[in-house]
């Protein structure tokens, strides 16, 4: 299993990165073949956090299986829960109250921002800049406080249930989110000042990890990874779900195809998320927050697929139902899995030192890849 550092016949060196490595953000194992310092081959070895979620869900009911998905891509747990709840609702044709839709979208966008903040801090730390990590976590904590007050947890919420949300909003929620919007707008400018404008950082990120538009599509890249290469793939725009079609926001697309454009996509997405929340926060409709549903949910026989946009890209939930109380087969099409497959294409020909700068902009969450 552990292939030792070895040299192949033509003098190329094979080294292991991971599974315990600070820059892989988890337990990713990469087998890298080097010619001198240049990467000639890269092979991911997954499964160090393969928790058999798909098998597990086959024995859980439709109310219960949602909690496992919070642990899949834990940085966008609300959005994962949203995808599952949407699948069940569309299969049972449950109409959810408008208030619940508004709450869901606000929560999703807050999650997206928190995820991008963490990515920003962690990526900068990988490149050797330590202080962005602390700035990013300072802002992230204020999102966590808002979440905790309403959802009851900081990371793995289990707040979206089939039919709506679990509780109503906390009375302080609206005021706190408004406070956060003002607070974060100034901080995001600080982020740009601190890192984006830095020439050293820009030179480090530009012209590495290039993937063309056609390749990005062929490799199945989604999310900011593909949008940095000019692919329009925001599910919120092209196949709108929930109330996204009513909202005014832009799909951020950059055409640089390199690490820096992927970086910029995420920075601009944070501003778009703020814009979405600003539109919603003042006019959350009054009313019910949860539709009346049966105690035991039974999906009709058939196959159901839902696509949502998480912070990392397109998440698909594919449920095959036999008419029972638990899914016959469930498949999570996770964004990280496909984005990772493009890593070899991006890294090939670059120096080993650039690996971290390229992998950082893919924003991989390993439990999301392994499931």
């Amino acid at each position: 299993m552990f292939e030792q550092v070895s040299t192949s016949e033509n003098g190329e060196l094979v080294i292991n990165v991971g599974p315990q490595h600070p820059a892989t953000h988890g337990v990713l194992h990469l087998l890298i073949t080097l010619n001198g310092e240049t990467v000639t081959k890269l092979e991911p070895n997954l499964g160090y956090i393969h928790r058999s979620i798909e098998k597990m869900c086959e024995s859980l009911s439709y109310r219960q299986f949602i909690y496992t998905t919070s642990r899949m891509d834990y940085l966008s747990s609300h959005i994962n829960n949203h995808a599952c709840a949407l699948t069940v609702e569309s299969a049972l044709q449950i109409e959810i109250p408008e208030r619940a839709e508004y709450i869901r979208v606000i929560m999703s966008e807050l999650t997206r921002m928190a995820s991008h903040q963490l990515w920003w801090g962690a990526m900068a730390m990988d490149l050797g800049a330590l202080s962005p990590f602390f700035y990013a976590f300072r802002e992230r904590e204020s999102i966590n406080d808002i979440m905790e007050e309403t959802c009851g947890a900081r990371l793995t919420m289990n707040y979206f249930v089939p039919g709506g949300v679990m509780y109503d909003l906390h009375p302080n929620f609206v005021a706190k989110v408004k406070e956060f919007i003002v607070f974060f707008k100034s901080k995001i400018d600080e982020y740009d000042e601190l890192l984006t404008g830095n020439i050293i950082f820009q030179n480090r990120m530009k012209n590495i990890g290039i993937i063309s538009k056609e390749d990005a599509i062929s490799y199945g890249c989604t999310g900011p990874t593909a949008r940095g290469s000019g692919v329009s793939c925001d599910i919120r725009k092209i196949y709108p779900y929930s109330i996204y079609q009513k909202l005014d926001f832009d799909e951020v697309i950059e055409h640089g195809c390199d690490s820096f454009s992927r970086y910029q996509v995420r920075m601009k997405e944070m501003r778009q998320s703020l814009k979405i929340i600003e539109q919603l926060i003042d006019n959350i409709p009054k009313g019910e927050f949860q539709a009346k549903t049966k105690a035991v949910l039974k999906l009709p026989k058939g196959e159901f697929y839902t696509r949502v946009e998480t912070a990392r890209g397109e998440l698909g939930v594919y449920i095959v139902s036999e008419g029972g109380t638990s899914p016959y087969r469930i498949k999570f099409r996770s964004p990280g899995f496909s984005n990772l497959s493009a890593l070899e294409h991006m890294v090939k020909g670059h120096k080993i030192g650039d690996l971290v700068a390229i992998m950082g902009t893919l924003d991989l969450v390993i439990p999301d890849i392994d499931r």
Partner: protein
Amino acid sequence: MITFLKQYFKDIYQAISSLLKGMKLTGYYFTHHKEIITQQYPDNKSTLVLPERFRGEVVMLHDENNEHACTGCSACELACPNGTIKIINKFEVNAEGKKKKAIDAFVYHLELCTMCNLCIVACPTDAIKMAQTFEHSVFDRSLLTKQLNKPNSKLREGVE
């Protein structure tokens, strides 16, 4: 050659000036520590208030007569996705000579619990709720398996 040198020094100047710009921000926060956000955790224990919805662990509510509202219907046990709750029932003979179901032990595996709140939602009599305690560090894992009903506790009158 001249243009190359010009570009070279220009690059160095830009790099240093943009670096200083970022350093200025850090320097600002270093000297203006009006917004200290660090919590002094073990020292602020007396003043630390967690949000009331925070899910720390499942507890069973007992009143002053050592009575609870759990009928032993196992709705929570069925709702739990990963077998955290085990209810062991017994049959008690009441004053009229009828057999009545009551809980013998409400076993709660805190080490398995994911605080998903499904058991609280499922409970028809509101016998259990989430507590805000979070200090669950122990030296031995078996201490995390708890019995939630207190010894000699009874079902409250009128709860069906």
